């Protein structure tokens, strides 16, 4: 923390091309990444290296897939100055029907998955209608949704509905097939996925940097750029190595989550829709006077949240192996916490998908580390609460310092 404060006291230089100026402006994102790494290292020491056992790394992804998926949608909701309290109940509601479709109605599992996502669309339309077109605050509509969908979930699956289907169960519980054999004791498929990830990272970063240089826009100094690439590539390689060493290799949900993170990072950064969300969150009045159809954008944000809740419901039901009325309890709070810890501004307009991923991982690592240490679940919850407050306090205080230094 002391290095953060030292940089803060200097007014950030206006240009972004100096290394210090660049670090100053991107402090938050890298700050939280640094904190994540510090937490990992701390627990690695405290648990005598057990935290990063290959099987634990795979489990970390499988346990936290639902937060990662929901946090993606939640960042978009919060950037647009709204909130969604209903996603946990929606996960239970859709998950319950998903189990019914497979077990009671004997639908093929891919059809049940598609139908679950479709229910997500309908639920999203329902909430989006009240929020965008009737103008009821999202807090109220989704608080109502939280009660409504929990109630409907209980009505749908008053008794737990087990799902025996192997294909469906594999979504969250199994890993990519070992089609490429082993390299030493490393899973070939995982190595391939890791290589693709690193290649894709380097390729997209270099390409976008080239484009910027072509237009004479130096966004970051080359030292920072190369350093960043090396660090991220090394991190990806290390995670790949750990997963390749684990019993089953790459969990299927990692592919689902990874694809969603890449897709939504692109949507938020490169599409008109993404732009409009940031524009609305940064200054709603200015966005309206720029011709942004703010109601439609708001509506679509909640439809999208419904879709992601549908996907999270599939993953949760698959992992539990059953449709349970009590599924998804507090999921909305985990997703909101992940978004805020990941640097999404409480006042809207600022927030990144990658930030929420880091936020979700910080909470996931804390959970896992504490449970390896045998800490009480109550402590885990209390510590998560403190981390959330500390993260948002840091956000607000650093903004105040930045403003007063101008």
């Amino acid at each position, binding site marked *: 923390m002391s290095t953060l404060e030292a940089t803060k006291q200097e007014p950030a230089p206006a240009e972004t091309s100096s290394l210090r100026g660049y670090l100053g402006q991107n402090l938050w994102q890298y700050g939280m990444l640094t904190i994540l790494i510090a937490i990992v290292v701390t627990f690695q020491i405290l648990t005598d290296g057990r935290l990063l056992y290959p099987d634990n790394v795979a489990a970390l992804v499988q346990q936290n897939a639902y937060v990662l998926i929901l946090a993606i949608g939640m960042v978009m909701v919060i950037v647009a100055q709204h909130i969604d309290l209903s996603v946990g109940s929606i996960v239970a509601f859709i998950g319950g029907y998903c189990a019914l479709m497979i077990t009671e109605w004997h639908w093929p599992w891919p059809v049940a998955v598609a139908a679950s996502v479709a229910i997500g669309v309908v639920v999203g339309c329902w909430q989006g209608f009240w929020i965008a077109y009737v103008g009821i605050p999202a807090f109220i509509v989704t608080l109502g949704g939280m009660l409504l969908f929990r109630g409907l979930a209980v009505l749908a699956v008053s008794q737990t509905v087990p799902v025996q289907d192997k294909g469906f169960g594999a979504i969250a519980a199994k890993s990519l097939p070992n089609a490429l054999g082993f390299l030493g004791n490393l899973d070939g498929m995982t190595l391939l996925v890791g290589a693709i990830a690193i290649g894709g990272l380097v390729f997209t970063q270099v390409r976008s940097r080239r484009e910027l240089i072509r237009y*004479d826009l130096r966004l970051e100094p080359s030292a920072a750029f190369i350093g960043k690439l090396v660090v991220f590539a090394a991190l990806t390689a290390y995670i790949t190595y750990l997963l390749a060493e684990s019993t089953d290799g790459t969990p299927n949900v990692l592919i689902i989550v990874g694809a969603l993170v890449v897709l939504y990072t692109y949507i938020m950064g490169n599409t008109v829709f993404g732009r409009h969300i940031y524009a609305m969150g940064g*200054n709603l009045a200015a966005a309206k006077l720029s011709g942004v159809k703010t109601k439609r954008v708001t509506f679509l944000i909640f439809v999208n949240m419904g879709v992601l809740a549908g996907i999270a419901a599939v993953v949760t039901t698959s992992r539990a192996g059953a449709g349970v009325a009590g599924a998804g309890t507090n999921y909305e709070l985990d997703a909101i916490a992940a978004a805020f810890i990941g640097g999404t501004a409480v006042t809207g307009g600022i927030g990144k998908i990658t930030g929420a991923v880091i936020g979700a991982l910080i909470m996931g690592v804390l959970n896992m580390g504490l449970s390896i240490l045998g800490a009480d679940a109550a402590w885990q919850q209390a510590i998560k609460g403190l981390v959330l407050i500390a993260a948002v306090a840091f956000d607000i205080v650093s903004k105040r310092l930045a403003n007063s230094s101008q």
Partner: protein
Amino acid sequence: MPILEMVGITKTFPGVKALQDVTMSVEAGEVHAICGENGAGKSTLMKILSGVYPHGSYDGEIRLDGEPCHFRSIRDSEHRGVVIIHQELALSPYLSIAENIFLGNERASRGIVNWPQTNRRAAELLARVGLREAPDTKILDIGVGKQQLVEIAKALSKEVRLLILDEPTAALNDADSAHLLDLIRQLKSQGITSIIISHKLNEIAAIADTTTVIRDGRTVATFDMHGAEPVTEERIIRAMVGRDLAHRFPEHTPKIGDEVLRIEDWTVHHPIDRGRVVVDGANLRVHSGEIVGLAGLMGAGRTELAMSVFGHSYGTGISGRLHLHGTEIRARSVDEAIGHGIAYATEDRKRYGLNLIEDIKRNITAAKLAAVSRLGIVSAGAEVHRAEKLRKEMRVKADSVAVLTGKLSGGNQQKVVLSKWLFTEPEVLILDEPTRGIDVGAKYEIYEIINALADAGKAVVVISSELPELLGICDRIYAMSQGRVTGEVGRAEATQEGLMRYMTMDKSGVSR
């Protein structure tokens, strides 16, 4: 003996000298009017007097009854009997009249409100201001005129000796205005001194004992309204506007072409108070290559006219016709208006113009992202390229288009706003107070940009509260007053005095 003396008051905001060596004195028991153009410094002066700007944030001295005062907050000034009633009333709509009167000054012992005493005292105060309403009536159930009286009752509850009213009749109808002026006279007979800020010269003539005129942050004249020499509205107007115009505006020879925009019989109602007509049957024409000014005082309806034309972004019950190149168009949403080539650059760039937490390029492209995107995907390269080109043309001082707009100076922010609207390739550009809050050098640059836009064949409308600015850059000027277009003058025959007469004309067409 004067109750109040303000001596050598100077107040500086970053980059702007709002008040410069202002000196005035108010005699006990008089009604003292202050008038001046928008932005002359009247409100700033009153905020200093009432402690909104605390002692130490300005130079000079305030003396009450000959004794120097160091107000640190509104509470301090109210303690000495100085109470200000702002133009936007500060009442809580869901509380009762009585609760509002004693808000922050509750009739209570040990934290427990004494309701019988509260309501009894409130009833006495209401009787004093001539408001026949029960003390437990909620504020939202009474009209603006009565709310104004509640504010005065609240001031009386604080043992007011010097009452400051900022544009008290601006939102009132004629009957309510007349009642308010009567009340001020009545308070005067009870020994309460009033300072009244007003644009309405007929009111000033009717009620004031002394009038001080402020212009460009200085006191320029003080008139004794009962003196030997009669104070005509002419004399006050001359004092309000008299100023030299040399070399503040670039030379420009217009090349005026065909009519681009024609606004016919345009009427707009207030968005909440739907019965109130804000723009009343306005007719305007703008030609290509022409810079048309829109003059008016606060509340004349200029911004409301512009925003309602810009895709109905203000008001309800909008009627009238818009013609673009002689063909009637429909522009009921901002999106449609932009599509027709209409652009509106707001008077309040921080609130309505820019996303301050985003960078220059994203602000520039915000109003027409489609121009740099295909199938909903923004081309980062094209965006940077187009934004950078505009940044260079407009000479926005920043290292690159990746700098956040919140970090720019006012003048550069304004250039980003102009770039944003130029990016939409408009045919009609409506610029609302394009030089508000920016320094002289940057103003000159903005004027050059406006001239260049006109030379490129655009139809430009400039709304400004600074008459010299309109006279300096416009080819033709419309004046508005109380929602109506009251006059139209060409560049050659336009004078500040002539425009001010149109701008202060009331509904019946009589100069107030």
